[in-house]
């Protein structure tokens, strides 16, 4: 019974704090003016659309392909390689594209990003390949 009361209390407190924080954030956003809001909305909606309509279906497709084509012992390593390389690439996208580079500032975006990415990808694929081969040698725990 006390467990139930604690659960209900926690949920009510969390919910109320959440509504207060969201209301403060929304109010602050509205206070920045209609022009600022109009410039913000496409970015708020664009992220959802980019994930739900583009990225998520692509990952489903990759999953279906992997399920059909990859041997069981390679699936875990392939999924891990996709998770690491895919998400790190996405997180580093603004640097990789050097979109903010300026000719008057040589200290900004000053690394060889293509080479860095290739080195990182090689490392991840090598680690995944080694893990996959080790699984196969063990007799493939999850043959399928």
């Amino acid at each position, binding site marked *: 019974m006390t467990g139930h009361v604690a*659960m209900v209390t*926690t*949920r009510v407190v*969390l*919910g109320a*704090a*959440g*509504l207060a924080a*969201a*209301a403060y*954030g*929304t109010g*602050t*956003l509205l206070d*920045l003016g209609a022009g*600022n809001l109009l*410039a*913000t909305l496409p*970015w*708020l*909606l664009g*992220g*959802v659309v*980019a*994930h739900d309509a583009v990225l998520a279906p692509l*990952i*489903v497709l990759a*999953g279906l392909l992997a399920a059909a084509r990859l041997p069981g012992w390679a*699936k*875990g390593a392939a*999924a*891990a390689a996709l*998770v*690491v390389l*895919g*998400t*790190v690439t*996405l*997180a*580093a*996208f*603004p*640097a990789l594209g050097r*979109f*903010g580079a*300026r000719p*008057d*500032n040589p*200290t*900004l*975006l*000053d*690394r060889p990003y293509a080479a*860095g990415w290739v*080195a*990182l990808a090689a490392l991840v694929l090598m680690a995944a390949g080694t893990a996959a081969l080790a699984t196969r040698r063990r007799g493939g*725990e*999850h*043959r*399928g």
Partner: protein
Amino acid sequence: MALLSGTRLTDRIDRLLPHEEAFRSALRGPDVASRVGLWLGLCFLVALLTGVYSHFAQQASTAIPLPGRPVSLYRVTQTLHIAAGTAAVPLLLVKMWAVNPKLFARPPRQRRAVVLHVLERLSIAALVASTIFQLATGLANAAQWYPWAFGFRETHYAVGWVAVGALLVHVAVKLPIIRDALAQRQPPAQPGGVTRRSLLLATWLAAGVAVLATAAAGVPGVRRISVLAVRSGDGPGGVPINRSAVAAGVSALATDPGFALSVVAPGRVVRLNRADLEALPQTSAELPIACVEGWSASGIWSGVRVRDLLALVGAPARTAVVVRSLQPRGAWRESRLPAEVAADPLTLLALDLGGEPLSLDHGYPCRIIAPNRPGVLQTKWVSRLEVQA
């Protein structure tokens, strides 16, 4: 929605969309979502606390004066802020993958249940939209890429509160499911599938690699392996440049041989050129420059203590000072040193960096460097120090 069910249009849409049950991976569900969500929530908390701190540190005046010690506090909080946001990218993507089938759950039939369903969907929409917005705009800002028309700092601050609020509501709604899922032990592996253990391991690895490869560039020693960092950390005097003299439009004014700094107090003005400043007692200090974009570097700065300059015009050391730059435009051409910052023996009008005269891009002829202040307030190309009455 319940009212529309059974029409030809909704039937056609229903046939086109996959059903929640069509997603076959057993890893998609509360088991993985709760574990990844826990760490994602922790990243939210770190980003919120450090973000709010940074927001107030950039205000011209705050209710509570920010401490000058430790001198690297802002450097640490801002590095944490960017690291939390970067680690959140893999966590968020795996978390959303785990719950994606829910997107295709059909609304319930009873009217009361429909209302609850719609409310929950709205809170999730707010959570997803605000979270992706925060990560996308934050990472772009860290790379000095601004492909938008809204004000970054204010909007990122406001949407941050929406994201945290929506997250708390989401946790409140899902708390019993989260509790039960976290109590679940490792489920038996599906034949031919990926285990929960290996998926979680890959997720933690992805978060770690993302932070090391990009955001950890401000940490001495880690910088060399941060191959995807926005800055290598090189620059004149060993410190990178945020805004160049060309970008600020000050090149001609800053190199003008007739340049003289004005120190202004009510009824008194002292004008000092660069040689006059060099002839005053010099102080050296190792202080970091830590930018809101998340990069930071430590340098050895030397110059004249601001409080010594205030003494020249007969002002007490503990006086607030308005610092004006030669920059003809821009929001940061003026900053304010609160009284306790002006009095700090480490608050310098720097002339040299790393034993060399300041480079033009670092603020030649003279700039402000003070302990524990965001980089945007370390005003460069200073032309005027004015005591606030």
